[in-house]
């Protein structure tokens, strides 16, 4: 909870608009380790900047439902962008969120159908399926478009960053605490920063009525 608060505080840092000056880049590497200290075999990591705002783009980000999984299970969008949830499975899903940043309930919809939602506030939105408790995804709703996905080796490049003193964050699902670093970006130059994330177990969640799931004798909470 505390980690989420700090992340949201970071996302809410809407200090200054982006300006049309020569920009710089922030480059670096993110390493992800499990809570037992072992390196994570695979990790989907989003790296993003806060401290300035940019308008939303036109694109609609997709989170597909494939084989009882959200794919991808971590996306970053800019405030006032939409996310679409196509159901590619042959059975019903009921996508919902009870996150304070954005509550929604898409109802149950079948194969081939898609529903979308607008995200007008910055924050972290946890998305689940009310039918399949193993399905979980996270949407980072960010104040600007300076966000990227680290590659398989953890490397990232954030370009088009306005000069100034900003904070860069790295986030992966199941992160035990937010990871960030202060950076100074100069026009036409690269700023290098390396970040490390510790990843824990999948956080507990309840269904859309605030109750425990009961599925095949296994209780999810």
């Amino acid at each position, binding site marked *: 909870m505390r980690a989420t608060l700090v992340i949201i505080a970071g996302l*809410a840092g809407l200090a200054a608009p982006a300006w049309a000056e020569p920009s710089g880049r922030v480059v670096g590497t993110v390493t992800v380790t499990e809570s037992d200290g072992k390196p994570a075999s695979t990790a989907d990591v989003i790296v993003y900047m806060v401290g300035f705002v940019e308008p939303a783009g036109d694109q609609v980000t997709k989170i597909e439902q494939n084989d009882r999984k959200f794919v991808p299970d971590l996306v970053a969008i800019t405030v006032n962008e939409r996310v679409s949830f196509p159901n590619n499975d042959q059975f019903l899903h009921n996508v919902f969120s009870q996150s304070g940043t954005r509550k929604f309930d898409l109802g149950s919809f079948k194969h081939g159908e898609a529903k979308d939602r607008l995200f007008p506030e910055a924050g972290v939105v946890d998305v689940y399926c009310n039918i399949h408790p193993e399905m979980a995804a996270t949407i980072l709703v960010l104040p600007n478009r300076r966000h990227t996905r680290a590659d398989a080796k953890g490397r990232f490049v954030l370009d088009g960053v306005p000069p100034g003193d900003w904070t860069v964050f790295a986030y992966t699902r199941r992160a035990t605490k937010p990871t960030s670093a202060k950076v100074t970006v100069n026009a036409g130059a690269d700023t290098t920063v390396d970040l490390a994330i510790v990843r824990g177990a999948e956080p507990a969640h309840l269904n859309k009525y605030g109750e425990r799931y009961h599925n095949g004798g296994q209780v999810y909470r």
Partner: protein
Amino acid sequence: MRIALASLVVACFLPRTADAGRSFYGWLYGTEVMPERGVELQTWILDENNKYATHTQESSIWWGPLIGITDKLELVLPIEMEWTRSDVEKGSFTFKRFGLEARYRLVSQDPVDAPAFAPLVRVAVKRDVIARDDVRVEADAVGSYEVGSVHALIDVGFISDIQSGTQHSELRPGGGVSVRVTDGLRVGAEVYSELSLDSKGESWAVVGPDVAWTHGRFWLSGALGIGIYHVKVAPRVMWGIAF
């Protein structure tokens, strides 16, 4: 700066709309509908005490499953039971009528995509169980407006009892205001009336406080209608459980 940041954090956690109740009112239809393929069992219990010069007492039970057909349309299969007694009539309890009802919300049910004003239309056709030729047709035009924690609603209802060779119609206007106290609790006040449009019936009206409460899949709302015209008191409680 820290205070501003903390305020933003708090603001992020404020719900955009309250969760209390499918209807925030007791005597009025709401503008909320089930999400697609959602199912809810809904029950009402209502009393109308000391109506008219004949001191008519009525208690009714309404029960029905609601099914979300789409995100805007829901169907209801209601059954109604009624107990009545008056100065000129002995007490009797009966399974009164059953039927089919549709409620259509004209705008998105999503709190972000929906405009502040949300209209809903409702139509129902019900058949009397005992008087088997009697049919009741009901219609409502409902509009709600929400700003911050305040929700206002107007419901203009119409019913017509069509019997062989005769007909009785009523206008049933009402309105209310509901204020969010916590995420799950609302309080407010409402006015409701049933106005006969012909000489075959009488009219009555109430005004009073209401409350709505939500807990998980369960919601409850109710109003204590205090008589202002041809009725003494008319409480009504509704609740639902979603699946």
